[in-house]
C-alpha cells in the first residue's frame, strides 16, 4: 500500500448526500478481474453523456459539462469534498480503486458508510470525517473562490498532525483511528501484520475446536 503523509491539493466539491457505490463505479465495470484502470469510469453515469460499457475508448466519449469534475478548475483535484453518508451501498472495493486511480487521495465528508470507509484505508486513501457545519463552511468557501474566479481552492492535509489547513491559514483538526493512521503513514500491509500473529491464530483454533468441534468438520 502507498504511504500517506501530507498533501496540498485542489478540492472538488461534490454537493450530494448519500453518494452510493453504484454511482462511484457502476456495476458494468465490476466485471474486470483487475485492480487498476477504473479511474476513467469513476462516476461514469454523471460524468459522461452516453452510457458507458467496459472496453470503450473513454477519451472519445462526450463529457457532461455540468458535472463538477469536468469543470476546468477541478480537473486536477486530489481531494474530494462531499455530503453525508458517502460511499453507502455495496462492499465493492472497486469504488476506492476508482477514486484512487482517478487521483483522489483524500475524501472529506460529514459521514461515511462503514465498509467504504474501511476499504479506503486499505488503498492508501484517507477519508476524513468533519462536522456537517465545517463541511458546509468548506463548500461555501470553495463556491466563494469559484465566483471570484480567483485561484483554485486548495487544502493542505497533514495526517501525522491530524490537521487540515485552509488557504486563509485556519487549521481544522480531525480524528482518525490510531492504528489505521499508523498503517497509512507507514504503508503497512494488513496481511503481513496478521502473519505476525500466526501462533495466536493457531492457539485460537485449537481452543475453539475443543469447545465447538462442529465448526471444524467441514
Amino acid at each position, binding site marked *: 500500500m502507498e504511504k500517506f503523509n501530507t498533501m496540498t491539493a485542489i478540492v472538488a466539491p461534490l454537493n*450530494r*448526500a*448519500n453518494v*452510493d457505490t*453504484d*454511482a462511484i463505479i*457502476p*456495476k*458494468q465495470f*465490476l*466485471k*474486470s*478481474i*483487475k*485492480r487498476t484502470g477504473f479511474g476513467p469510469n469513476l462516476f461514469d*453515469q454523471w460524468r459522461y453523456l452516453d*452510457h458507458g460499457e*467496459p*472496453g470503450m475508448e473513454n477519451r472519445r466519449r462526450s463529457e457532461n459539462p455540468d458535472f463538477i469534475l469536468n469543470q476546468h478548475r477541478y480537473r486536477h483535484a486530489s481531494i474530494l469534498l462531499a*455530503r*453525508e*453518508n458517502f460511499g*453507502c*451501498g*455495496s*462492499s*465493492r*472495493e472497486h469504488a*476506492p480503486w476508482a477514486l484512487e486511480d482517478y487521483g483522489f487521495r483524500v475524501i472529506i465528508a460529514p*459521514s461515511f*458508510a*462503514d*465498509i467504504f470507509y*474501511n*476499504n479506503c484505508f*486499505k*488503498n492508501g486513501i484517507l477519508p476524513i470525517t468533519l462536522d456537517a457545519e465545517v463541511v458546509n463552511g468548506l463548500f461555501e468557501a470553495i463556491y466563494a473562490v469559484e465566483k471570484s474566479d480567483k485561484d483554485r481552492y486548495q487544502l493542505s492535509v497533514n495526517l501525522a498532525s491530524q490537521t487540515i489547513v485552509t488557504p486563509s491559514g485556519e487549521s481544522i483538526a480531525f480524528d482518525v*483511528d*490510531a*492504528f489505521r493512521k499508523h498503517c497509512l503513514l507507514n504503508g503497512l500491509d*494488513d*496481511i503481513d*501484520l*496478521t*502473519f505476525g*500473529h500466526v501462533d*495466536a*491464530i493457531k492457539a*485460537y*483454533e485449537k481452543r*475453539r475446536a475443543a*469447545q*465447538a*468441534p*462442529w*465448526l471444524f*468438520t*467441514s
Partner: protein
Amino acid sequence: MVGRTLYDKLWQSHVVHTQDDGTSLIYIDRHLVHEVTSPQAFEGLRIAGRRPWRVAANLATPDHNVPTTDRTKGISDAVSRIQVETLDKNCAEFGITEFKMDDVRQGIVHVIGPEQGAILPGMTVVCGDSHTSTHGAFGALAFGIGTSEVEHVLATQCLIQKKSKNLLISIDGEVGPGVTAKDIVLAIIGRIGTAGGTGYAIEFGGTGIQALSMEGRMTVCNMAIEAGARAGMVAVDNKTIEFVKGRPFSPQGKFWEMAVVAWQDLRSDDSAAFDHTVRIAGADIKPQVTWGTSPEMVTAVDGRVPDPQHESDATKREGMQAALDYMGLAANTPMTAIKPDKVFIGSCTNSRIEDLRAAASVVQGKKVAASIKLAMVVPGSGLVKMQAEQEGLDKIFMKAGFEWREPGCSMCLAMNADRLAPGERCASTSNRNFEGRQGQDGRTHLVSPAMAAAAAIAGHFVDVRNA
C-alpha cells in the same frame, strides 16, 4: 454483573488477539465467495505465493453475472464469462468447494449458504458482498467485506476489526395480515434512515421479529446494510435450530447434540445494555413502497409521494427533488397511482421459497396487466426453483404471464442481460433503488413479493391487504 448482548457474545468468542487501542484480530468461521469481488484477492494470494489458511471454511458460487435464461448456451457477454471462468479456475487451483453455474445447488450466495447448512448459529460469516448481513438471521455475526479483506481472510482466516456499538431494534407486537418482513425492514429504514445504523451492529428483536419465519428474518437482516449497519442479527430460538437441522453442511450425531446445547446461549442477556434502542409497534407497520432513489425514501402504500417543499433541511430538500426528477414522479401523487412497466421478483432479499409462495398466492388464477412489459420471477437458487416447481408455483406464474427464470442476482443489479431500459419503472423485491441500479436511468420501487405480484396484476401499486 451487566449482561452481554448477542453481538458481545459473538464478538468475544471470536477474538484471537486485541491491541491496546481495541483493534482486534477476529477469527472467521465461514467465508462465502462469488465471482465479482474475488478475482483480485486470489491474484493477490498467487502473487504472494500463499495458500488459503483453511480451505474448508470457504464456499463459492457464481451469481451476479450468470444468465437467467437457457444456460446450455453459456454466457454470451465475453467479459461476464471471463469473470465466471476466473472463479472456476481459482476454486479449482486452491481446492475450494464451488457450486458451478450448471450445478442445481448454484444460486445467490446468500441463499445457498443457509440452504446448505453452511451458516450455523454462533459463526462469524463474511463475504465480499454487503448483503452478507443476511446470515445474522441465524444468530451469527455476518458482515460484508472488501476485496482486500477477502484476500486477508483467505490468507489468515482472520480479519482486523474494531468492535461496533450495540443497537436494538425491537418490533413490538406482530404485524397485521398482508404485512411482511420486507415491510418491517423498509419501515425501519424509513424511520432511522440509511445512515441510522452506521457504526452499530443491529439486533432485531421483539415479538414481531420472533414471529417471523427464518426466511423472514433473513429478509430483515439482509437489509441491515441499507440502514447503514454492517451486521444485523436475530437471537437463536427453536425455529433457527429446526431450519439448520439435517442440511448437508450441518453437524450430525454427537456434534449436533453438542451444538444445540451451545446455541441456547445465543441471545442477549436480559440485563444486557444497548447503546441505543429503537421501538416500533408491529401493528403500525403497513405495506411499504419506496418512491425515491434511496431505501429511506419510502412510505406506506396508502400514502403519497412526499412534497419536498415541506422539508426544512436544504440538502435533504434538494435530494428529494433530485430523486423525484429522476423517478419521474410529481409530489403528492398517491402511491397507488404509480404504474410500473416491469415487475421483478427475486434477489437475496426475497427469492426464497416462502417469498415465491406469497407471490404465487396473489397471482393464482389471475393475469398480469396488459400494460406490464415484463414480469419475471428469478428463484434464489436451483434448489428453490426445484422446490417451487414441485409445488406447481412455476405453472401459476407462467399461466398468469410471468417469466420463470434460472437462479441468480439478475435484475437486482443488472450485471447480466436482465435490466431496465432508460425511463422504465420497476416494482422490485430487491434491496436497492439507487440511480441506475437496475439499468441506466431505470426507476426502482422496492416492495415485498406479495406487493410486487399485486402490482403486476393491477398494473399499478395496490394495497395487498385489499387485493
